């Protein structure tokens, strides 16, 4: 069956599609969170070095991965919007930014709460932590810049440029533990595999997928409001049953 993908790049069709898809990501996300945290807290053994404190990893690593991944997806959408002048891509970029910022914050927050008992400090200005903080500020910058320009298409273009330039920070975060001598430990998840206990790995990857589904569901739900707001003068929005009094 041939699917006309361009059909879904029309905001009117995507509004409908996003509404249909969002629950299919939201509920599995909740289930995966429950399963992942069950494994993480009841199946995974106590760590030999870090005792129970290490269990922060099941949230810290997925949140950190998501903060970087969402940034790249956001930058891609923004770039597509900039190059092909597609409104919907820019709207998706705007819809992803707050969720990405939230994961960056969770990454820093859980990192601080993990750093205190393990390193003896909430924060150090080391390469990994600083570059992740810059990522959070890049999200804030993207959101603020977009909000500060009245014309939405101009706002899309300006913030797209910021998103694209800022994406150089993502590999810096990832490789920071290799390039510089940092207090932060090396990557837990490497392309060559990991040295973790099986149950720990399962918990972490399950929570990662849960976070991924959560991000998709929330971004889809958020983009629907953005679409309505920006397309409010179109005929299809005027005819929308839920927008009628």
């Amino acid at each position, binding site marked *: 069956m041939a699917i006309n993908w361009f059909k879904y790049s029309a905001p009117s069709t995507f509004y409908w599609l996003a509404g249909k898809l969002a629950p299919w990501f939201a509920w599995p996300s909740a289930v995966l969170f429950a399963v992942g*945290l069950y494994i993480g*807290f009841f199946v995974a053994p*106590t760590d030999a070095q870090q*005792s*129970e*404190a290490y*269990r*922060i990893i099941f*949230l*810290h690593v997925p*949140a950190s991965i998501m903060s970087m991944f969402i940034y790249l997806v956001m930058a891609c959408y923004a770039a597509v919007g900039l190059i092909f002048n597609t409104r919907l891509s820019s709207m998706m970029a705007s819809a992803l930014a*707050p*969720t990405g910022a*939230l994961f960056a*914050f*969770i990454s820093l*927050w*859980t990192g601080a*709460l*993990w750093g*205190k*008992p393990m390193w003896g400090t909430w924060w150090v200005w080391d390469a990994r932590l600083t570059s992740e903080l810059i990522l959070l500020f890049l999200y804030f910058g993207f959101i603020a810049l977009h909000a500060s320009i009245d014309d939405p298409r101009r706002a899309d273009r300006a913030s797209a440029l910021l998103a694209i330039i800022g994406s150089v920070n993502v590999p810096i975060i990832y490789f920071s533990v290799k390039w510089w001598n940092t207090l932060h430990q090396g990557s837990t998840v490497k392309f060559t595999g990991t040295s973790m206990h099986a149950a720990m790995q399962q918990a972490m990857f399950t929570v990662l997928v849960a976070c991924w589904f*959560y991000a998709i569901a*929330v971004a889809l*739900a*958020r983009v*629907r*409001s953005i679409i*309505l*707001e920006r397309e*409010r003068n179109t005929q299809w*929005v*005027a005819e*929308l049953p*839920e*927008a*009628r*009094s």
Partner: protein
Amino acid sequence: MNWGEFFAMKGYGFYVWGSYGVALLIFIIEIVLVRHKRNITLQQLRLLRDAEKEEEGTT
């Protein structure tokens, strides 16, 4: 293992539950905000429709 021991996390309870608790709170806030935003947007659309209808009525 009883629940008291479980929540104590061998002395790391504050750090572990502080991490998960704040994350949960943030997720809940985001979900509430997204829903609120949708209600506000729909409400504004209705106001816009009503204003247009009134304009049509007066002219």
